[in-house]
Structure formats: structure tokens, C-alpha cells
């Protein structure tokens, strides 16, 4: 029996994956082959050195603050940016420009933004906060303009016949109808930002990641362990809390 087009597609995908692995010299078995190293690292990580306890606490607070400020700034800026990017609200040339802007902000990962911003504003949490803000503005803006564009057309029709201006339509239709989604989205972005903030320290943009990379590079795995554990605990807690809160929002 001749394979269908669907089967051909899957065969092609599998071949591409195998080809890419060979090209990169990727061998999944190497993790088992080099068990010696893995065991040493795990053993040392398990020797938790809690002498860094105070630093864990303060760097964790810094990470959470960075996530809170960064995601809030990004989210707030994304609301008007998405209005300008939505095709059903803005003139086509304005929406094209803002879709492009949000696309750029979103396509550069936070870590890369952080590297660029450390060069511009220097080491420390300011670079991290700005990196999170820019990325979240792009990510949230893209979500939001899709929400705006999928809203009930008849509300817009009614407003057009009433003679409402674009700003009035945004104020009375677009934003109120999007509000329940926005609450959900903000909580999701906040928990996402905590995860992202925790690695920005790797490039000197503040937060707990700085200590993790510092201790790992100086082979102090036992000192790195409490920081990693703290991030793991906070990320899981944030994820749990935001899922619960989002469910509550949906029910209301």
C-alpha cells in the first residue's frame, strides 16, 4: 500500500530530526556513558551548604521583585500597544507598525535582551527588569491583539453607527470585554517572569541566577544547591498559585 501524504510528512519530520542530530553530533547516551561526572555533581549538589541562607533569601526577594516590576511594566505597556496593533481598531498602517514592534520585542528572548541592556544600563537588576518588561510587552501584546480581534463584531458595528471614536470604542468595548482574559494573562505572565528572572543573573542582570552561576563556576556545588532549590520551590509555588487564581477568575 502506498503511504499517504500524512505518512510522508511524518517520515520527513523523523528524517530531519535524525539528520539534525547527526549534524550536531548529538548522542543522548553520553549522559549514561559519563555517569562518573553526573554522580559527582549530584553528590556535591546534595551536600547543601546552608551558610548561604541569607543570600538565598535576599536574592530570591530580588528575583521576585524583578519579575513583579518587569512583568507589570510590560503588561501595562502591552495594553495600548495591542490596541494600536489590532486590525479591527487601528488604521492598517498603524497596526502593521505595532505588530512589527511587538513581534521584535517578543522574538528576542529575555536573556538576550538582558545581555544588550547590561551593556547599555550596566550590571544589576535594572537591566533585568527592563529585559523582562520588553519581552513581556511583546508576548502579552501579541496575545492581547488576538483577543481584541476575536471580539464580537456586532458590538463594534453598533458603536460605529453610534458614531463613537476609536478611543471610545477601546474604552467601552475592547478593554471591558478583554478584562477577564487580562487578569488571567497577567497571572500567567507573572509566574513566567519569575522563571525568566531567575536566569538573568547569569549575564549580570540581577536576581538569583548570579549566585547560581558564581557558585557553579567556582565548583561550589553545595553552595549552588540551596539557590537552585529555592528557585525550584518558588517557581512551583507560583505556578500552583497562579493556576488556582486563574481558575477562580474564570469561574467569576
Amino acid at each position: 500500500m502506498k503511504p499517504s501524504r500524512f505518512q510522508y510528512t511524518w517520515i520527513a519530520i523523523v528524517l530531519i530530526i535524525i539528520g539534525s542530530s547527526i549534524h550536531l553530533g548529538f548522542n543522548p547516551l553520553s549522559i549514561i556513558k559519563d555517569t562518573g561526572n553526573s554522580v559527582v555533581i549530584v553528590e556535591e549538589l546534595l551536600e547543601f551548604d546552608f551558610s548561604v541562607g541569607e543570600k538565598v533569601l535576599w536574592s530570591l526577594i530580588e528575583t521576585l521583585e524583578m519579575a513583579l516590576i518587569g512583568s507589570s511594566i510590560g503588561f501595562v505597556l502591552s495594553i495600548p500597544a495591542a490596541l494600536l496593533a489590532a486590525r479591527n481598531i487601528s488604521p492598517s498602517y498603524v497596526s502593521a507598525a505595532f505588530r512589527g514592534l511587538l513581534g521584535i520585542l517578543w522574538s528576542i528572548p529575555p536573556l538576550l535582551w538582558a545581555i544588550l541592556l547590561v551593556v547599555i544600563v550596566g550590571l544589576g537588576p535594572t537591566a533585568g527588569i527592563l529585559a523582562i518588561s520588553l519581552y513581556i510587552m511583546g508576548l502579552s501584546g501579541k496575545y492581547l491583539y488576538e483577543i481584541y480581534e476575536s471580539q464580537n463584531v456586532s458590538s463594534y458595528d453598533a458603536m460605529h453607527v453610534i458614531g463613537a471614536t476609536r478611543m471610545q470604542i477601546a474604552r467601552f468595548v475592547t478593554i471591558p470585554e478583554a478584562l477577564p482574559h487580562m487578569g488571567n494573562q497577567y497571572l500567567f505572565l507573572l509566574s513566567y517572569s519569575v522563571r525568566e528572572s531567575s536566569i538573568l543573573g547569569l549575564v549580570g542582570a540581577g536576581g538569583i541566577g548570579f549566585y547560581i552561576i558564581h557558585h557553579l563556576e567556582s565548583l561550589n556545588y553545595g553552595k549552588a544547591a540551596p539557590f537552585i532549590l529555592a528557585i525550584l520551590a518558588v517557581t512551583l509555588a507560583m505556578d500552583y498559585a497562579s493556576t488556582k487564581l486563574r481558575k477562580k477568575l474564570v469561574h467569576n
Partner: protein
Amino acid sequence: MDAISLSSIRLTINEKKILDNLTVSIPQGNAVTIMGPNGAGKTTLLRVASGLVRPTSGEIHLFGKKFDKNQRLLGYIPQNLGLVGELDVFTNVMMGALRRMPRWRAITGTYTKDTISEAYSLMYDLKISHLKDTKVKKLSGGEKQRVAIARTLIQKPSIILADEMTASLDFKAAVTVMDIFTEIKEKMGITLLMTHHNPEIAKMYSDNVLILINGKIEKNIPSKEITKETAEHLYET
């Protein structure tokens, strides 16, 4: 005098004729219902008459003057009513008055005493005063219809275009809404062009019925001539 007249309206989309050389005039104060099978062009005709869709050719006149969006003569109740479910009844009603307010008032939501009392009086007439603080998404179908009517009436339009405004209601609820609406409409001397699926409603609340088939007006008859058989034949087409 004709409140609204459509002359030789044609609308072609992707070479498909949606409205085909359509001419109709409605005298001031009259109520006219457009009936026809699904896809006949009823909603499109109302969208053209409201200025939401520009016809390929033809002209629209309101009270003898060429159609201009700034005339503020039209009120429009779209098929799904076009209400904002997340806002309360009062705000939805006030949205109809946006055009009459200074922009800063409309944006900040600080309405004048006169506009507020107009809204209260309309909500009272339409028996929705007690719901003024309720979110529209929590209302029943009949209550939503009344909010949509209040929002349109506060515009002070001379002509109202209403698309299947009682579609989601059972006959009894539809009659209740239409009774209240007709009473206010007559008091304000409003001209009404609407679409309905129910021939009984069309007969009770309109002077004339336009039968629209494939974008063409097949018949323009007094509503009392509409029979159940006419309607059944119409929806079999």
C-alpha cells in the same frame, strides 16, 4: 416625506451579487419588515442602510438628503445586539449617547445630569431600571433586547434599523418587547426598518413587508397580506 430611500442599490462581493438593483422608500413613521430565506441579503441590506457597508453602486437618502454618517439620524440594533457583556446596563445604555457628549466626558464616564436622567427615563419605560447595575452578560434574552433598545433610543434617532431583534426570544417574550418598543417608537415618531423571521411578529408590528430573495425585492406588500403560507413558502425557497 420618505425617511429613508434606497435607490438602485447594488452590492457585489467577489463577483457575486449580494444586493441586486434594490430600490425602496419608507415614509416617515412607518415600520417595515424585511423577510426572506437565509442568505437572501437581509442583514447586508441593513448594514448598507446603516453605512457600515458601502454599496457598489446606488444611493441612500435620509429625509431627502444624501446619506452622511454625521447626520446622526440612524440607530442600529445588530443581530447579536452588540451589547458589552462585561459592562453594566446603565453604561451600555449611556454608550448610545457617546456621540452627543464632549469627548472627555465620554472617555472619563462623567455624564451630564440631563443625559443621566434621559437614560433613567428610558430604562424606566423599558422596565429595566432595577437592573441598572447588573452586568449585561447576566441578563436574560428579553432583558438584553430592552437594553439594546434603550441604547438605540438614547441616540434620539429618527430611523432605527433592527436586525432580528427578537430572534432569541419565544413568541410571548418577543411580543412583550415589541409592544414596549412600538409604544415608544410611536411616541417619538421613529421610522423602523427591521428583519424578522416570525411572520406573526412582522404582521403585528409593521405596515409593510418586503420579501427579499437572492438580493432582490420580490414583493412589497402590506403586512396584513402576509399569511402563514406565504411565510412557509418563503423559508422553503
